[in-house]
């Protein structure tokens, strides 16, 4: 008798909860169904009696042309930072594909809680701002901090030759596509944000690209 009573006492609230849960689920399902039907109808109704099928088709054709006109007609560079691949492209055609090294994504903090750097290769649309032959590297502050050295006061102490390879292409904010001494690391994310390339690929890129060439980095 006691067991039966306790069973009933347990079952009633559980059953009520289950009923509430099922009711809420059904209500959610019903609400979710309503707007999609409304939307489907609105899409078909929107155009009725206003713009004809032919007119919409020609408008779409014009829109497609306007989008196509925005894309570069000359050679452009696409950089895939996830897979460390650089493409030279013209239209849909890939002219050359090469292994590169992009930003490591690591963080460097200045001892004493000062400045902080995140070594990412920037993503977005850029263009070649400068083309340099036999570039030398003017080491920024982070390069000294990373090595645990004091930041020099004399600008001459920052200059390092033969570090960036034979060519460099600047794309703004101190970022460059340049050569590397560490060719075995091509294909890995190891840089401080710049894009490193092998010597032959870099030479080809330097010759093919001109100032203003678009760079798309993702």
């Amino acid at each position: 008798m006691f067991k039966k009573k306790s069973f009933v006492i347990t079952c009633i609230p559980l059953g009520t909860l289950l009923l509430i849960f099922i009711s809420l689920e059904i209500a959610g399902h019903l609400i979710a169904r309503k707007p999609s039907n409304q939307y489907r109808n609105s899409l078909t109704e929107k155009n009725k009696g206003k713009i004809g099928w032919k007119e919409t088709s020609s408008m779409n054709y014009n829109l497609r042309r306007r989008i196509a006109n925005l894309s570069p007609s000359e050679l452009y560079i696409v950089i895939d930072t996830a897979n460390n691949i650089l493409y030279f492209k013209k239209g849909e055609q890939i002219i050359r594909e090469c292994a590169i090294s992009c930003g490591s994504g690591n963080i460097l903090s200045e001892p004493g809680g000062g400045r902080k750097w995140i070594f990412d290769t920037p993503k977005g649309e850029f263009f070649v701002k400068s083309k340099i032959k036999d570039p030398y590297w003017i080491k920024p502050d982070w390069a000294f901090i990373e090595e645990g050295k004091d930041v020099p006061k004399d600008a001459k102490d920052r200059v390092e030759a033969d570090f960036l390879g034979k060519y460099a292409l600047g794309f703004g904010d101190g970022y460059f596509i340049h050569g590397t001494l560490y060719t075995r690391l091509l294909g890995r994310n190891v840089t401080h944000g710049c894009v490193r390339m092998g010597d032959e690929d870099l030479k080809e890129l330097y010759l093919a690209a001109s100032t203003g060439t678009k760079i798309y980095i993702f």
Partner: protein
Amino acid sequence: MVSRLITLFMVFAMPANILAYYDAINNSEKLLLESELTLAKKPSLYFIFDLRNKKIYLKAKGILLREWEIRKVRYWGNPVAIKPIALTEKIAILPPKRESIKTEDSDEDEKYEVKALELDDMPSSYTLSLTGDIFLSVKPEAKGWISIFPAALSTLRWYTIPPLKTLWFSVKKKPYTSIEIVLNIKRESQALYWAFTEGMECIIF
């Protein structure tokens, strides 16, 4: 007599329906192209989630930079308007963590070991929170017998949580949309996480 009437009805009614259908497709394509033109004019990259053709496109200035193939897609709740929307947050159980560079006391051997945030460190199952309370869940296709239990759990979650969220959002008088995308392999899903950064805009079509 009845069959003749049905045939007659179909002859007259069907073309009207077909025209309305193509009209809707044409109109939604117009909205997509108008939205893409708005994004293509900007100096930034954008995504197009073409759920009808099961493709994801990463584009800039109308140029296709990368393409993903969608294996499966399911949606829930309010339909998404064809217009540019921005990514507000990437939600993952284990988000990737950046390494901090040690400036002092670093071992020589340690220096030559590559410590970086790479594609393999990205999560493969995550949710993209977009403006307008749109939640886009991405995951790779589950393979092998070991995946049966998580797949069943995911299906159960899909049919129980979104209805409750819909109800909650409707009480708050806000729209709610949940989309689940299954990609072919883990690496594809990780690559999408890598490429889609906060603030970037997209169109869901």
